[in-house]
């Protein structure tokens, strides 16, 4: 049972939430902005751009010996505060323009929050439980090969609401939205709701993978199917064993989804290498509280 071509009139959860998008001027943050704008348009939410001048960075430019090592060339050049300030201003300006451009065509309300401090703290102070935080998996000049930056790691675990970690589009994009759950009922509700919404947004089939210890798996499946029916959505529900994170990654790769939704409370995060799961699956991931 898959869910495709659901009419858009199916009620989506609207509320007081906002879509927070982290803008740092990097390429991936611009891609994340587009995704955020789409979601905001669908939900009818306000979009709030957040541009944080990282205080550590500003401080580091204040040392006499400070040098900037080019991420691609490896060339070293001196760094000074004035120049960095100027660069930050121009990036902020660029973020503003991008935000305006992104909302202009969609008729959304937008605001840009410029602040100085530590990114995670600033975001946590801005975001509420209803807010969706959208950000690139990595920021500027993330080390080549890195697929999950420190900010993403931090927010994924601490944000009060959902966090969408945007990834670069793959060479061979997958198909479908997969929601990864465990058989405890706790946080499934929210993850499932997000999964249904994403599947509708992309007009793609939805698959629900349930990590189960075995005995009561069928009941969980039944409960999930009831939930899906209640929300007027359809999905394929599949039980998977409670194996290691690497095994889950393998199963997910088989599914080949375009997007993943997972709850922070999912037992997979308790295990070693849960981060590695996200690193290996280079695709947009929504982490729900």
């Amino acid at each position, binding site marked *: 049972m898959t869910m495709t071509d659901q009419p858009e009139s199916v009620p989506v959860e609207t509320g007081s939430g906002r879509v927070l998008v982290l803008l740092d001027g990097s390429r991936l943050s611009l891609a994340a902005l587009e995704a955020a704008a789409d979601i905001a348009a669908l939900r009818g939410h306000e979009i709030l751009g957040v541009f944080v001048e990282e205080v*550590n960075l500003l401080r*580091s430019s204040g*040392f006499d010996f400070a040098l900037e090592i080019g*991420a*691609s060339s*490896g060339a070293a050049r001196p*760094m000074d505060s004035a120049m960095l300030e100027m660069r930050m201003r121009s*990036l902020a300006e660029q973020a503003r323009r991008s935000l305006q451009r992104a909302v202009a065509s969609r008729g959304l309300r937008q605001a840009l929050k410029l602040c100085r401090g530590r990114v995670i703290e600033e975001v946590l102070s801005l975001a509420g439980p209803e807010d969706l935080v959208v950000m690139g998996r990595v920021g500027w000049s993330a080390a080549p090969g*890195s*697929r999950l930056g420190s900010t993403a790691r931090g927010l994924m675990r601490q944000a009060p609401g959902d966090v969408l970690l945007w990834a670069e589009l793959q060479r061979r994009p997958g198909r479908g939205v997969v929601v990864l759950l465990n058989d405890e009922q706790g946080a499934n509700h929210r993850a499932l709701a997000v999964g249904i919404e994403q599947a509708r947004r992309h007009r793609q089939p939805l698959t629900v993978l349930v990590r189960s210890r075995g005995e009561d798996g069928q009941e969980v499946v039944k409960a999930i199917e009831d939930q899906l029916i209640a929300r007027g959505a359809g999905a394929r529900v599949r039980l998977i064993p409670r194996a290691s994170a690497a095994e889950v990654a393998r199963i997910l790769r088989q599914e080949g989804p375009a997007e993943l939704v997972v709850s922070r409370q999912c037992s997979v995060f308790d295990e070693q290498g849960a981060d590695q799961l996200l690193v290996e699956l280079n695709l947009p991931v929504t982490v729900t509280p």
Partner: protein
Amino acid sequence: MTVPAPLNIDQVYHRCPPEKLDFETTETLEDLELPCGQERVLRALEFGASMEGRGFNLFVLGPSGAGKHELVERFLGKHASEKEVPPDWCHVYNFKNADRPKALRFPAAQGREFRKDMSDFTDELRTAIPATFESEEYQSRIQELQEEMAKRQHQGLFDIQEEANRNNIAMITTPAGFTFAPMRDGEVIDPEEYKKFSDEEKQLVESKVEELQKKLQQTIQQIPRLRKEVRERVHALNEEMVQITLGGPMGELREKWSHLPDVVAHLDAVREDVVEHAEAFQDGESGPPAGLLVRYKVNLLVDNAETQGAPVIYEDLPNHQHLTGQIEHRARQGTLYTDFTLIKGGAMHRASGGYLIIDSRRVLTQPMAWESLKRILFSGEIRIESLERLYGLVSTTSLQPEPIPVSVKVVLLGDRMLYYLLSHYDPDFLDLFKVEADFEDDLDREDGCYVLYARMIASMARGVKARPLTRDGVARLIEHASRLASDQRKLTAHDRVLRDLLSEADHWARQDGAELITDEYIQQAIDEREYRASRIRERSMEQITRGIVKIATGGEEVGQVNGLSVLRLGASMFGQPSRITATARPGKGQVVDIEREAKLGGPIHSKAVMILSRFLASRYAGDGELSLSASLAFEQSYGGVEGDSASVAETCVLLSAIAGVPLKQALAVTGSMNQHGEVQAVGGVNEKIEGFFNVCRDSGDLGSQGVLLPESNVEHLMLRKDVRDAMGEGRFTIYPISDINEAIELLTGMEAGVADENGDYPEGSFNRKVQDRLAAFAKVGKKRDEDNDNGEGGKNDDD
């Protein structure tokens, strides 16, 4: 001297003896495979076709319509069927040098197979290689590779970050890279606070930062090398996968074609090329680019799969391209491009190992075709080059295909004139065309030939899908063949005329609803042909009967005789009489040829008149001087006169003018004469006689007329039936003459007379009259000379 006896009707027509034709209709006769009487040509063909040496190509010469092409094709077809089938030739892509496509040789019929094998192989590439790239195995291996590389890249940076953290130094990302700064409790120390650090602490921090910066620089600078390594390893993996995928089909192909080392080498080159371009096959949906797959195609240039024996090719438009092949171009977005698949073979390719028949006139009229043909025959290989490139007219990219060795026997067909001109003017010609096969125009008409000739007619009739001929029909055709050869002892070998006649006779038979072609239909065909060509002849005849052109067919006249001439118009000939007149008076021994003076006489005619004037002098003047001023003219002739066939008539008319003896106008004369008065053979006697006969018949008083012709011409006579009938009834007579005296006696009715030992002719003879008259002229001349010497003489007209 006795007057020669007139010819009887059997002498003027050689009938076909019915007993020689032992059949009712030609239906029962077997086909004649090779024409009779052409032994010379057949032996030349046999020799030329089997002779292996270089340059022993053939030139078959004979008049047009002699059936050269048909005979050669039939002969070579039979000859070639016993020879082995020549190899196939293919052009394939040259992976080392794309502009020079390679040529591959295959035993006959295997070229086609190889083309199919390569086409199947290409199809397999299209599906099998993308499938390999789609496979789990490949995907997971490539992922492992990428993960490993990503890890290696990341690990370097991660290690530096760890080291920095251990030393309380933060590695911070900037918009364009990284920087290091001292930190405490996870936060970068405020620069102001840092200033308060002791110098030692600062030095420690700064030296560590410097060290880290250097390490980071090194690590980052290694990234391109790592990336390159990834690319190389991915490429190696791709190659490995493609090698494995190709292993099966390529192995089969190599095994199958292991008997041809060049083909195996090409297969290896294909495999290397596929492996090299492995990535291009990765996209399973749109497939590899067409330009890539085209390279594995096979251009089958020469396909002898269905050839039986050696090929016999007739190229009816032997231009440069058709002979040597060509490289075509396709227009793509306004540009012309080509590749090895657009190479088209020519007739030389197709005929290689066999025979190529070409019409020599056509090959000579096509630009560069003759030169190209010679170049191929000299070099023994075909090098395809376009005409426009040879002339340097275009500069589009083109190919230089590997030359293909060729061993072809070229058979040129042409008329004799071309053969002799080429022999004379083209120094290469005799090097390349050493075998001359000369067609006979006529066949000997002997007892043994009738059956063969009848069989030839039977084959011909079947060939043109005509009805069978009756025995009479064949006999009539044989007789007509003699007439066409203008010889009682010959038969024409001219294929086209006989064939046309058969077709026409068949047409008349069909119109009558007849089942067989009888002699009547043959005769009808002959008559119809003659009638169709008779407009000019009839106009000319009408002028004579109406008296516009004056020809007397009765009575006697001095200084006037009927000569006979022949006119050839297109394919038809007809004869008609011409009035020749002469005048004679004293003079200085000259005979004025009015035709020559008026520039209407040809050189042979002039020569004949000179001969007759020397004949006169030597016969009648003896040791004395010939005092004569004579003139000769063809009356009412405006189109020029050529040939010596009127010299007997001219002699007679001149003698008549000198002697004042009238000549019988009922007789016409033809024949040439030498200085001793002997009559020699001439051409066109049948037409001449029939022409005079027509005039006599149309003038309405046919009864006592006749023709004098050289005795040596008698065996050339094949006269029309109405002429023969008139002869049988005694109304028309033909006299064979061998000496001028016989002509004189027949024309004058007087004895010619033979000179005695003093050179004097008997009293009362014609020659005596001539002699006396010339003597009188001499006397007059002498007197006039004396008068002139005495200063009394008047002016002499002839001076």
